[in-house]
């Protein structure tokens, strides 16, 4: 029913949903425990594998948390390039989601066009980082690969191709198509108060009119590039779609801005020693919403505790309030509108 291993136990009256219980636990991997047993440097590669889509943001968030704990100053160029990669991962995640969302509504051709546009972004990732999704480019103390001038030009070129493809195919359809609107407008309503109270994050929260985006805190280089969250106030599936679509364009702008503002210099610093005793919280904005890393060091090369609160984890309670009262045919659409990632949720 869904491309995710979640079991939603629905209670139906004819085709109307009256109750819902989520059952997860099919792909629990114990990554938090593994994070305590691994040396803290290798954890970067571990946390990247929490999710196959927002992988880079996980690595970024973990690295920044450890850097904050160890009081390491990362070179500015590294921060800018981290921003680029994290925005690239946002674009491809949103496009993947948009494709699946269209597919859930039975709109296969839009699905294919979204993934076609996504391919350009993945090519950029492969070109700049060496791998398409799980890039393994962020390390504690900086990054491992530089984006030089020629490559930056090539990235800009590909991004303009990307924008053209989006402008011609995906955007007009999503903005105007009456059948898409019929399936999404007014479905899965979540008011501003509910969204706040239930701890919704990411595009769900912003689709309900709350201007909250962790990028506002200015981690990586968001302080230098400037950032305004994208907000839609309707709180339905369509609003969430539009938030994500606008974020794709915004991310493209952010990458271009970061590439032009990027200072010269080193891309990493050598970090010696182990994380000191102490605890640290760090948050980053993933494509799906805020991710919270809690780490506790104890002076050895292993961490005392690594806790990850992923965005889907926070978005399941809002989903539970959105579903009752809808038609069965809308369940896939509403469930997908939170962009569920169960692999993230269970870790």
């Amino acid at each position, binding site marked *: 029913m869904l491309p995710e291993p979640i079991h939603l136990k629905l209670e139906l009256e004819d085709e109307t949903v009256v109750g819902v219980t989520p059952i997860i636990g099919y792909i629990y991997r114990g990554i938090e425990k593994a994070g305590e047993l691994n040396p803290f440097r290798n954890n970067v590669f571990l946390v990247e594998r929490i999710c196959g889509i927002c992988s880079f943001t996980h690595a970024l968030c973990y690295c920044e948390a450890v850097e904050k704990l160890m009081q390491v100053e990362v070179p500015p160029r590294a921060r800018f390039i981290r921003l680029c990669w994290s925005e690239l991962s946002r674009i491809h995640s949103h496009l993947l989601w948009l494709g699946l969302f269209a597919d859930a509504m039975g709109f296969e*051709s839009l699905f294919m066009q979204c993934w076609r546009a996504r391919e350009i972004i993945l090519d950029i990732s492969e070109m700049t980082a060496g791998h398409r999704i799980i890039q393994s480019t962020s390390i504690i103390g900086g990054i491992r690969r530089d984006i030089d001038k020629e490559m930056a030009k090539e990235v800009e070129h590909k991004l303009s191709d990307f924008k053209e493809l989006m402008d011609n195919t995906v955007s007009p359809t999503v903005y105007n198509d009456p059948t898409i609107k019929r399936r999404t407008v007014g479905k899965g309503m979540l008011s501003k108060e509910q969204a706040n109270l239930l701890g919704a994050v990411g595009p769900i929260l912003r689709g309900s009119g709350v201007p909250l985006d962790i990028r506002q805190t200015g981690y990586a280089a968001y302080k230098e590039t400037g950032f305004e969250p994208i907000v839609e106030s309707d709180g339905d599936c369509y609003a969430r779609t539009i938030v994500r679509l606008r974020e794709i364009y915004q991310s493209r702008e952010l990458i271009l801005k970061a590439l032009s503002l990027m200072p010269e210099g080193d891309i990493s610093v050598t970090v010696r020693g182990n994380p000191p005793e102490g605890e640290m919280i760090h948050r980053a904005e993933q494509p799906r919403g805020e991710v919270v890393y809690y780490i506790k060091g104890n002076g050895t090369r292993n961490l005392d505790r690594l806790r990850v609160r992923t965005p889907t984890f926070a978005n399941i309670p809002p989903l539970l309030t959105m579903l009752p009262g809808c038609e069965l*045919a809308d369940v896939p659409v509403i469930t997908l509108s939170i962009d569920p990632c169960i692999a993230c949720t269970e870790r």
Partner: protein
Amino acid sequence: MSTGWLVGSVVIAVIVAPLIGGLLRGIDRKLTAHMQGRIGPPIIQNFYDLIKLFGKKPMVAGKPQLVFAWGYLFLIITAVVFFALRQDLLVVLFILGFAGVCLVLGALSVKSPYSQLGGHRELLQMLAYEPILLLAVIPIALKTGGFPITNIFEYGQPLLPNLWLTFIALVIVLDIVMKKSPFDISSSEHAHQEIVRGVLTEYSGPYLAIIELAHWYELVLLLAILGLFWIVGSLWWLSILTPLAIWFILLITDNICTRLTWSWMVKFAWGVGISLIALNILVVNLGWM
């Protein structure tokens, strides 16, 4: 017509119809793939699929399923035979209706929730298109003076210029029967959507093949009914081209819209379909066309 000729046409219909149907499904997949920017499967992929499915181990969730699968195929072949024999159009459509009931009963005979829901939706779907299909016969009968298909052949001039409103209503029916967006509600094209594959969820191996084969017959039959509108006169070749053109337009529609809900479908089919036909009957009776 001689008996030999009749037997010949029946044999040709029974053998050629699935070949055309399978080929059309293959071209459908290829064209859809191209519209989406993909390469797509070979045109005869559906025949490969069918042969492979027939070669699988037969498994059923219950005896009734087996009966209904075969029943579905035989009733549709019967409808095709009746059509080839130029029998009563009304009878052909009734047999087609019965075949649809078989599909629904087959889906409802197993306990899988997806199959059950698919069955319910298929019922609603029939509720949506059967009235149009049956009503569509009335203006044809009024025009040609009776229900037999022979009458259409003997009528002497093409029906479409007078009955294009009915024709449009039948196109809507064809779209529903082909299960293309926006009407693919009872069994989606892809197995990961909404209700898995709806009515087809619990079929596998040879029985799925039987149902697929029946779908090919059904597709060809409905296209042939659309072809009836041009059958006579010097423009007879339009009776082949028009259904194909309509079929192509439906493919495009499939690619430019989402699946909608059953409530919308019933409203749309009844609202638009029935009023088109009613208008047509009125116009024909008043002698404006």
